[in-house]
């Protein structure tokens, strides 16, 4: 059974914009899949469906065989624990330290009084430090999040995903706000996370990064899945063309 299975998912927003049109694919543990497409291709909508933040009009989104679209309340929260999300804007709690932000990944499992007092058990603290060590940020363990660089903040977010012990990691444009060097470090880290058996789905709009890091590329445009090909079988030039052509359409000046 695949870890993630998206089955003919369709979503049209009330404004009439068709964000997703019968998108289907599945992801196995250990795969690093890149969703490639320009802005507006439907990548963020797809991610929101994968975490249950948005309900598709039709189709199913299965995590470990459970359709997240049909869940609510406690069941939804339980399924969400399996999916860790990494955002373009990092979304750390700025006044807390790196370690505390990593512990946020374990929020559902921590007793409420510990959360209120911000006092955690030794095992949890040690786990958080281990996660930071895995992403290479042990020396920043007690630094406040807003004092870290963009690349470091994103790696803390990845450490948070590790602490969550999720089996699926979704990364929505994880490197869009980073310089090339930090981007490379972050993508390397995500690859190593996938190597541990986690299914990683990252959305990118840079073709070069996708062809460098992905095990599989899923190309989206205007909500439709154009190509779903493993490494070695995708043609970088064809992808470049798909991307450029839609770009050119958007860039047409008013005067023609």
């Amino acid at each position: 059974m695949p870890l993630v299975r998206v089955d003919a998912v369709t979503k049209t927003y009330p404004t009439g914009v068709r964000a997703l049109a019968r998108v289907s694919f599945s992801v196995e543990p250990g795969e690093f899949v890149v969703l490639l497409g320009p802005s507006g291709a439907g990548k963020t909508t797809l991610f929101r469906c994968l975490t249950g933040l948005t309900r598709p009009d039709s189709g199913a989104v299965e995590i470990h065989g459970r359709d997240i679209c049909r869940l609510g309340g406690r069941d939804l929260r339980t399924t969400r624990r399996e999916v860790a999300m990494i955002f373009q804007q990092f979304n750390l709690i700025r006044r807390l330290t790196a370690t505390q932000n990593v512990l946020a990944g374990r929020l559902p499992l921590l007793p409420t009084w510990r959360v209120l007092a911000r006092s955690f058990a030794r095992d949890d603290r040690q786990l958080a430090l281990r996660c930071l060590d895995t992403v290479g940020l042990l020396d920043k363990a007690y630094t406040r999040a807003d004092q870290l660089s963009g690349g470091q903040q994103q790696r803390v977010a990845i450490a948070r995903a590790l602490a969550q012990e999720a089996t699926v990691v979704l990364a929505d444009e994880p490197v869009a706000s980073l310089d090339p060097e930090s981007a490379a470090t972050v993508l390397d880290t995500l690859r190593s996370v996938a190597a541990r058996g986690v299914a990683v789905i990252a959305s990118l709009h840079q073709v070069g990064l996708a062809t460098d890091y992905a095990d599989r590329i899923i190309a989206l445009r205007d909500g439709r899945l154009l190509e779903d090909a493993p490494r070695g079988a995708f043609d970088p030039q064809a992808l470049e063309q798909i991307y450029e052509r839609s770009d050119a359409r958007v860039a047409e000046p008013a005067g023609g």
Partner: protein
Amino acid sequence: MALGSTPVREYAEPPTVWFSRARVRIALVVVAVVAFYVVSWHLAKVDLERLATGLPKMASWARKAWPPATDELPVLLLRAAETVAMAAIGTTAAALLALPVCVLAARNVTPSMTLYYPTRWFLNALRGIDSFVFALLFVAAVGLGPFAGVLGIALHTWGSTAKLWAEAIENVPPGALEAAAATGASRVKVLAFALVPDVAPAMVSVALFWWEFNVRASTVLGVVGAGGIGQELKNSMDLLLFPRLLTIILIILVMVTVIDYGSEWLRRRLE
């Protein structure tokens, strides 16, 4: 010169319209504002002549007021302490009441929008009615003395504090809250872990501000019989006991200054 290569020629400019729509509108606004002030001046019965004749009278009082009276110092200091106590207890009660309510009144974290609107209206009502007015009502209900003052301060400050706290909550970047919720944690944990660290400093700052403000406000409450040094102030004025009046004013100044410095020190320590 960099412009050198651009040929010199006559450039076409849009025609100047002296009575453009925008200019007419501005002129009307100015006229309205001036009219408003003229009317207000008359309604407020501003009379600079009376001020001119009144000032020498105040100067003669100032002379009669020196030196300040020290014979009743213990009683006056007790009243000052009452004033500070009223402000402290009233503000603290208001803050405790504001904690649950501010969450309801914040658009991004309120559990239901049907609770949000009535809560906002309720808080606006409390804010709109000054502590003074509430204290006046409570004197009739619970009798003369500082307790009426405490209740007056508590109700007005409840509204003001909750509203400012709700605004601080609404200004939190939504991303951090969304990320915490995405782990599957319950609402309470998300608020406790991701919201509190961000808003706590602003909330404490607001509470300290109101405490300072209420110490000054409660000096006046005694005028309606709600206890504290205000009552002594009114008595001294009515009986024309100028040295005593001066003593009271000096005590108030010292009290307010000490509180202001203390609050500033606390604020910096919490940074």
